[in-house]
Each structure stands twice: as C-alpha cells, then as structure tokens.
C-alpha cells in the first residue's frame, strides 16, 4: 500500500515539477513579446510547490515507513525490473506493508489515484502542445462518462468523508496549527476548481461539447485539495508526521495559491494586464462591398 502511495506521489511530483519547468520556458519565450505574465508566474509558483509537496510526501513516507530508505530503493528497483525478475518475496516486502505509523493507507492511495489520471492527461496534453501538437481533444456532446462525472464526484466525496471520519474516530485525532496550511490549500484549490468548472459549463453550449484539457484541469484542482485534506486526516490521526520540510513547502504553497487566485480575479475584472490582452493574429474586419463607380 505504502509503495503504491509512494509511487503515485513520486510520479505526480515529477509531473507537476516538470510542468513548472515547462511554464518557465513558456514565460521566458513570451516575456520579450508580451511582457511579464502574473498568471504564468503564479502558475509556476503553484507548480513548484505542488510538485515538491508530492515528492516530499513520497520520500517522507518511504523513509518513515519500516525499512526506511531501503523501501524507496526497493520500490524503484522493482519498478525498473522486468516483472519476471521480481521475486514473490520482494513483491511482498515492497507492497505488503502494514498500516502502522508512517505507512500509507487505502484512503491516501485512493485519493491520489483519483487525481492521478487527470494530472497526467493534462501534463501529456501540454507536452503534446509543446511539441507543436494540438494540446487538447474535443469531446462532442455529453457522453455518458462525462455525464457520470458529477455523480461519481459526489460518491467519491461522500466516501472520502466517511472514511476520513472513521479514521479520525478510531485514532482520536489531535488537531494542531501544523495542519492548517493543508486545509487552506483545500479551500483555495476548490475555489480554483470552481472557476474552472464554471468556465467548462459556460463553454459547453457554444462549443457543443467538452475540452479534455479543461476537464482534466477541472478535476486536478479539487482532487489535489482532497489529497491535502486526507493528508491532514492521516497526520491528525498520528499516522503521518508533518516534517519541517513538508511544512515549509505547504506554507509556501498557500501564498502561491492565493497569488494565483488574485491574478485570476484581477484578470476577470481587468485590473491586471496579462497575455490575454496580447493578440497574435491580425483579423480583417470584412464589411459590405462598396458599389464603386468606374
């Protein structure tokens, strides 16, 4: 269990950090033509706090669990080997961990797995765009899997909440100031998710469908927020220890996320100029042909 949590967090951490690096290149390319982008900078700040948060969580979890650093090496080693070369003992040692302090639980794994596909899809689309591809896919109409998303989200939230309450009740949670940045991030990420959802809903009718890129982003933020909330549950129940490095990263993530929301709201209200004001192609306003005399 812990290994799976470690692995998914490692991948997500790498993806978000890579995304931050891609955005730095984006910002650098556009700076001389369109000037500084608050939006880009805020997004970079978020990517560079979100990515390291997942990486730190993975390493912290791996090193704190039984076996410590061995567990991390073992995990990476197993992933790198062909499946035939993995001995049953190694597999059991790596994935068959208990639920003691410092080990990942099913809830932690579940919430990471829910956000995982959306995060990776968005990342892959951005990589595609960077390589000159479309960077998006269009879903015509509202297929069943899209229509099911609200119901699935509700079920997911209810299940996660019940599981979290169960964990807290069993362990006798002790809430402290060290957990607050994660709750603030839950709040801010849900707000960003709301902005994204609002835009996707508004775009649906004129587009006649959905943007996969938009849907992925809309899913990423609230699920990321829920991951932080579950982290708090595990930490409050004594299962995870909040390390100083993790706390520093999370407290850096809070102003980064607030900065991002400030930029988005300012752009909505037109009080900040950004790349949305830069036009990239000339358009010719075609009017009625004149009846010219010869």
């Amino acid at each position, binding site marked *: 269990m812990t290994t799976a949590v470690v692995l998914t967090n490692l991948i997500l951490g790498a993806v978000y950090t890579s995304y931050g690096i891609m955005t730095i290149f984006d910002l650098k390319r556009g700076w001389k033509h369109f000037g500084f982008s608050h939006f880009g900078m805020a997004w970079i700040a978020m990517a560079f706090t979100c990515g390291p948060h997942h990486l730190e969580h993975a390493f912290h979890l791996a090193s704190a669990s039984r076996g410590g650093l061995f567990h991390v090496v073992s995990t990476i080693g197993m992933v790198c080997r062909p499946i035939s070369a993995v001995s049953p003992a190694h597999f059991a040692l790596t994935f068959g961990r208990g639920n003691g302090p410092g080990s990942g639980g099913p809830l932690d794994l579940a919430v990471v797995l829910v956000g995982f596909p959306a995060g990776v899809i968005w990342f892959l689309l951005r990589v595609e765009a960077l390589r000159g591809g479309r960077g998006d896919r269009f879903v015509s109409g509202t297929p069943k899997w899209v229509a099911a998303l609200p119901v699935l989200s509700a079920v997911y939230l209810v299940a996660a909440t019940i599981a979290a309450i169960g964990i807290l009740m069993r362990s006798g949670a002790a809430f402290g100031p060290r957990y607050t940045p994660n709750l603030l991030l839950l709040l801010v990420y849900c707000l960003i998710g709301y902005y994204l959802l609002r835009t996707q809903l508004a775009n649906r009718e004129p587009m006649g469908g959905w943007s996969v890129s938009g849907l992925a982003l809309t899913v990423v933020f609230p699920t990321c927020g829920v991951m932080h909330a579950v982290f708090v549950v595990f930490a409050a129940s004594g299962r995870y220890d909040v390390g100083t490095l993790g706390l520093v990263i999370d407290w850096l993530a809070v102003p980064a996320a607030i900065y991002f929301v400030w930029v988005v709201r300012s752009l909505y209200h037109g009080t900040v100029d950004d790349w949305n004001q830069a036009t990239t192609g000339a358009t010719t306003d075609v009017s009625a042909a*004149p009846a010219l005399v010869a």
Partner: protein
Amino acid sequence: MPRQASDATAVRVAARVRAAAAVLVAATGSFLPDVHGRQAALFIVLSLVWVPLASTVLFAADRPGSRFALYGGPVIDLAVLFAVQVLLPDSREAVLLGYLVLVLFAAYTAGRSAATLLAVAVMALTVASNTIVDAPDRLGVTAIVPFTAALLALVLLQERLVRQEARATAKSQRLEGKSEAILARVADAVIVTDPASHVMQCNPAGERIVGRPNAEIVGHACVDVLGLRKGERALDCSKGCPLLQDAALPEVAGGSPLDIQGTPGVEVWRMAADGRRQPLLANASSVLDPDGNVVEIVHSIRDITSLKQAEEAKTLFLATASHELKTPLTVINGFAHTLLHYPDLDDATQQRALEAIGSRSLELTKIVDRLLLSSRIEAGRVSVRLDRIDLLPVLEERVHTLAKATGREVLFRCDVTALDVIGDRDAMVTVIDHLLDNAVKYSPEGGAVAVDADMTDDVVQLRVSDQGIGMDPEQVAHCFDKFWQAESTDVRRFGGTGIGLYIVHSLVEAMGARIDVLSKPAVGTTFVISLPRVVELTDGDNAEVDDAAASVAGAGEPTSIREFMRQIGVPAARKEA
C-alpha cells in the same frame, strides 16, 4: 468609498500587508514547538479565519471603490486583535497599540464615522474581554476609558485636519486646473492686455496664431504683437481697444465670470510671419474692478484661414462642377433640339446625334458618380473588402479600355505572370481608372502614358506615369485635397471637378496601401501605389514561418499559460475602440 485616490492606494497596500501578515503569522505559529491550549487555538483561528478573510479583502481591494475592502479590512483586523487579546492575554499592550493603529488608519481611509464606530467597538470588545479572561489578565477600566477617549479625540482631530486641508487643496487645484485647462485647450487665441494695450497673458493657441513664443508676446504692445488690420486699415489701440468699440461688446464687472458667448466678432486680418494674409475673427471684452475701472481686456481671436479656404474651395467647386455639367448638357440639349426640329435629317446624321447624346450622357453619369462617391467617402460610408486579388488582369483590362476609348497609346510593362495583392477589386478599378484619366488629361500634347508594375518581397508597386504638365512641390503637397486643382479657374485648360485624386487617395488608404507622387513641372507626373503582397509559401518558407511563430509565445498557440487562461475563463483581448 475612499475619499481620494491616495486613500484607495492605502486600502490596497493595507490589504496586501494584511494578507502577507496573516500568512506569516499563521505559518510562524505552525512552526513553534509545543503549542497547546489557547495558543494553538489562536493560531488555528488565525490560519483558518484570518488568512481566508484577509485574502478575500485582498481580492476585493483591486476593484476600485470596493466597500468590502474599505470597511471589511478594519473589521477583520479588529476581530483578529480581539481574538489575540482573549487568547493571549499577555499581549494586551501590543493589542492596545494595534487598536490605535487600526482606528487611525480607518480614520484616514474610511472616514470619521467608520473610525468612530471602530473606536466604540474597541471599547466594547475590551470591556467584553474582561468578562472572558481570568482576573489577573484583565485590563483596568481606568486604563480603557482614557485610552478610548484619547483614541476618539485623535480620530476627530485627524479627520478634521485632513478634511480641511483636502477641501482647500482640492478647491484651489480645481480652479487653477480648470482655468489652465481651458486656456491651454481652447482652439481660439486668448490674449489678455492691460488698459494700455500691453499683453499680460497669452495662451498656446495665441502663440500659434502670432507665431512667436510667449516670452516674445507678454509685455509687448498689442499692436506690435498682433498688428491687426480691418480692410486695409491698421487698427489703432492708442485710444482704447478698437475691437471693443467695433464689436460693441458688453462689459462685465471685475470678479465675475466672463461671458462672451454669443457676442459678435469682427473679421480682421494680419500679415503672418510667412508673408501670407491671415484672416481672423476677433472680439474683446473688458474686465472692470469694483469701482468700474477697466483693469484688463480679454481678446479672443480665431484663425479662420481654413474656413476661408473651404469657402473658396466650395465656390470653386460650384463653378467647376457647373461648368463640367454644363458642357455635356449643352451638347445633349443641342442634339436633342436638332433631332426634334429637323426630322428630315438623314439616318447617318441622326445616328451621329444619338451617339453624341449617349456619350455625353455617359460623361454626365461619370461626373455625378464621382460626386456621389466623394460625398460618401466624406461621410465615411465607403468601406472596402480586403481580399486576395490578382492585379495583372485588372490592369490589362483597364489599360485596354482606356486606349480604346481615348485612342491614346498606353504603355504597359509587367515582367511577372501574377500580381497577387491584398486589396479590393472594385476599389482598384476605380483607382486605376482615375489615375489613367488623369494621366491622359494632363498630357494634352500626346505624351506617352505608361503603366508599370513590379514587386518586391513585401509589396507590389504600380506606377502610372505621364509626360504632361507636371506639378511643382507645393502643388504636389495639395494634389490629394478635395476640390483642389493645379490651375486656378481663370487659366483652367483641363476641366474636371477636382475630386478624382481625393477619391484615389481615400480608397488607397482604406485598403491599407500607400500612394506617392513624383512630379516635375513640364516633365510629367508619376503616381506610385504600393500594395501589400500575398506571399506564396514553399515548404521551406513554412518551416521558417513556423519557427518564427514558435519563437513568439502565444503565436505558437496553444502555450501552457494561455491554455490555462482559456480553460479558467480569463477574458480574451479587449477590442480596441
């Protein structure tokens, strides 16, 4: 509402400081070891209440005139200070200082009422905290009452001083700014003289009309500076301002605002620095002191050169248009009369008469069409449809048509097989026809008319040349003016309404192209039109373009930043008005 711009800035800065402080304090609290009980509760409250609320105020503060940012910020600060006072009684001195700063800041930004309310709330909360905290941590009432009274007094005093100063400054600035703005922006010259006709003040329009800087105007005699004449007589200022007498302007009492609206002006003129006669419309008004003595005379002078030129152009146009219309009408009338009264004419003669009527009618139609097009351009009702067009067949057709109609040889040179440009086909036909007509008309000796077309990397250049009478530089400068003709009415040899080149210039500009004139008297004239060229891209070119686009973030859409903006619904580029 903030009372002035600086207050709005203060609110914005305060919101940023508050948000930063909230995050910093909350973060610090979470790093402290062994935080338990009330301390832990305080830091949790600060994290989960103060940080979100401070962020909300931060977002609101960017919207001009946000009441939430103005009043909500101090209220949140008050609540936070109260929470600190209750949960950390040891910090009560610091909290009292915080209250003081908070109320004074509110007095500056939100005004007296808000600050007074806050001061009262401070007193109430401080008293209330005494019922919550343990006895040793309570504040003495004797400390609270003078503190609050001092706070209120400070608020009232600060508010009064700020308001008085702001009111006086604003009034003074408003009057001064208004006066300066009026004088600076008004199109008429405003020249103020003393009773002895020495200039005391002159606005920028006055400097332009006189043609001298302010330093060479102020202090000098009015007659030397302006040198106004009426008819051929110089106006004499020695016995008072003649404009006052001529215009019979009403006098206004000193101290009251001048009202010269509707007063008649006197048409005068002066010799400009460049030696031309400068027509002016002038009037004057005297300013009296309370005893009825004249202290100042305010002159208002308007340069009516362009008005006079427009009048002359209109007169000229009426004369030329009438002449242009009358010539074909006379022919039509004559042949119609002949056909009517001489029915026995042979068929060939009748046929020639009908052909003459037909060709002259066509001529009339052309003149009327030109006049209509000109008036539509003037009214801004002509638009062009920009598209990709091949100019080569258009040129060949128009050159052929002109040669056939006039019997003149027109040389056409073009070394390429296609002239793809961005333009409007109908507009280009009109432009080419006018230029060819012009070239034929102004080369009466039968000099060669030539049309050349070539292209560079970016543009297609079209040249229409004649070996006619040509123009001098001044004529070149005015040749695109409406109703302008190179020769005056007295010596006109070529006819025309003077609007052809105006139409050409207007249409070329509307297509985003450019027209230049090269001319020399008695040698000839060449009109050069430069149109944007359509570039065909080869594979290599495409790669180059792609690279160029990729080098511009945003041009190589979609970039990550722009894509995220799109998905989160950030409004796209605002359209320029």
